């Protein structure tokens, strides 16, 4: 298992009406790996995740998932093949209860007609409740998600991805707005997921990144600038250069 490439981006380019947000991006991720993607604002991190999950289509390049070309697949087909995504702006179903949010994410059956008879929601309800416990939402299961605090919303999104149980999980700034304590709890969860899922995490909080990552990829101006362990990357002069003006990488 180890060493098997689950996701591979080759020479990916993305243009927004002429502006190259990403160009010549190469990225390979092994099954079970937890990869962190960092870079200054506007480096193209979010765009890279968008390309992988099918939200935007690359103008050039190729994406392979488990050895198959998935470059042109629409997002829902990519999701069916095992790509899950958390967005930078938290997006949960605000009018639905936390429980129902998890129920939607728990998507083993996807068809309209099959789900018509799904009155017996959550034969796996137990599993969903355990998930809620894992992220500390068990007290608010029956509250509308719109009533959650910002931190709780982030937790819920993480729980949604776990309920969806994707092989490859893409997370865009999962700890934004969390307290230091909450961030450390998140780090624990991520460490527990390592191996079972493949995670690609975009994050600014270097303490968090050091806590969870094996390998860090640094992006700058739409391409990969450096790749390696936290200590190596932080010493890299090119990386230091890129972060100049945004305060330096150490506490970025």
């Amino acid at each position, binding site marked *: 298992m180890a060493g098997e490439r689950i996701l591979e981006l080759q020479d990916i380019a993305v243009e927004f009406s002429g502006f190259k947000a990403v160009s010549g991006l190469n990225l390979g991720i092994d099954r079970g790996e937890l990869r962190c993607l960092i870079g200054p604002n506007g480096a193209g991190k979010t765009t890279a995740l968008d390309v992988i*999950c099918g939200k935007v289509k690359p103008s050039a390049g190729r994406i392979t998932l488990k050895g198959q070309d998935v470059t042109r697949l*629409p*997002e*829902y*087909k990519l*999701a*069916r093949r095992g790509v*899950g*995504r958390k*967005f930078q702006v938290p*997006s*949960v*179903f*605000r*009018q*639905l*209860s936390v*429980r*129902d*949010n998890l*129920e*939607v*994410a728990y*998507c083993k*059956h*996807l*068809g*309209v*007609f099959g*789900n*018509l*008879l*799904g*009155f017996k*929601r959550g034969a796996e309800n137990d599993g969903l409740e355990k998930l809620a416990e894992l992220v500390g939402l068990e007290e608010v299961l*029956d*509250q*509308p998600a*719109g*009533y*959650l*605090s*910002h*931190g*709780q919303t982030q937790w819920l999104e993480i729980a949604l991805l776990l309920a*969806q149980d994707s092989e490859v999980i893409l997370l865009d700034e999962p700890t*934004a*707005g*969390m*307290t230091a304590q909450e961030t450390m709890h998140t780090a624990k969860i991520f460490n527990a997921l390592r191996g079972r899922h493949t995670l690609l995490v975009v994050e*600014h909080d270097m303490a968090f990144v050091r806590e969870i990552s094996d390998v860090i990829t640094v992006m700058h101006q739409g391409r990969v600038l450096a790749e390696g362990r936290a200590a190596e990357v932080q010493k890299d002069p090119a990386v230091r250069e890129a972060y100049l003006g*945004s*305060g330096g990488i150490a*506490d*970025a």
Partner: protein
Amino acid sequence: MTRNRDAILRLVGYALFCAAILVVPLFVDNGYLLNKFARYLVFGILSLALSLSWGYAGILNLGQAVGFGLGSYCMAMALKLRTIPIQTGAGGLPDFMVWNNVQALPWFWVPFHSYAFAIAAGMAVPAVVAFLIGWFVFPARVSGVYVAIITLAMLVVINLVIIDQQPYTGGFNGITDLTTLKLFGIEFDAYSDATYYLAAITLSLCLFLGLAFVNSKTGLILQAIRDDETRVWYFGYNVAAYQNFVFCLSAAIAGFAGMLYTLVMEFASPTFLAVPISLSIVIWCAVGGRASLVGAALGAIVVTGVQGSLSDTPAFLDTWMLIMGGLFIVIVLFLPNGLISLIDLALGKRRRGRAATAAASVVAIERSESSRRQSAAR
């Protein structure tokens, strides 16, 4: 546990509502009044159908009357073909065809000799029309106000076609002079208890089946689509298929309501699928509470009821439209979830909710403030 209690309370509420509409004929033996009430119930069904697509799935269908009108015509065609010869013209042709020099019964009229076919068509034709529209609209990720515009345009087009094809549809006049429906030995005279019960039982069935539907997983996914359509795609659901399904379901129910409407009104008319009624449905739904089936039905009954009694009262003859408009604005402004949310208010549910939201947003604001300060410090 509160979840179960809420569900039980809701069931009790629905049962009470159904009981209330079902006992009406015991107290009213005026056929004219019963006919009027049956009309309100039919509007209730129509409004409930819109609540499924608009309230639960976020699809604002301004052409909801398309299904209603088509259903109404299907029933009228079947009844017209059974009208006694005096009104049917020579050779079994409907009178208006004779006046328009049509020589033989058009092919699409022929199967309407069968009630079974007509009733099936009354739901299937609206569903198929909806499916075709949905098939263009939803996979193209058209949503929100654009769906509203497209459905409204379709309504206008279909309305024009029906008016234009006078030899086959009766044009402006619609299809009139109909026999009464006799089915299973029951005669559904417009002013009879039977017709009222038919409307009341249909509405009750729609309420309970609708409740089961919105509580199924499909119903849940539709509500998720209403909240955040794009997010649902990323779980692997084919959102367009879900949207089209509820769009067709809603049209089929509207079609059934249309068939009942023909029985109640004793004719079919292009005004049944015109813009005014289509927009009225939206108002009923909004007034009653679009995200509640019983709320939507109640909205239709209350609005058309008040409208009926105001316009019948000489004192309000000139001003009733104004009064209705004012009421509508007040309700939409102060009760965004419609009249039905008064019940939630009475049960004290919302207040708890409001406090929680307020607390949550304070926390969220504090957090985002502090994270902004952090990033500024970087």
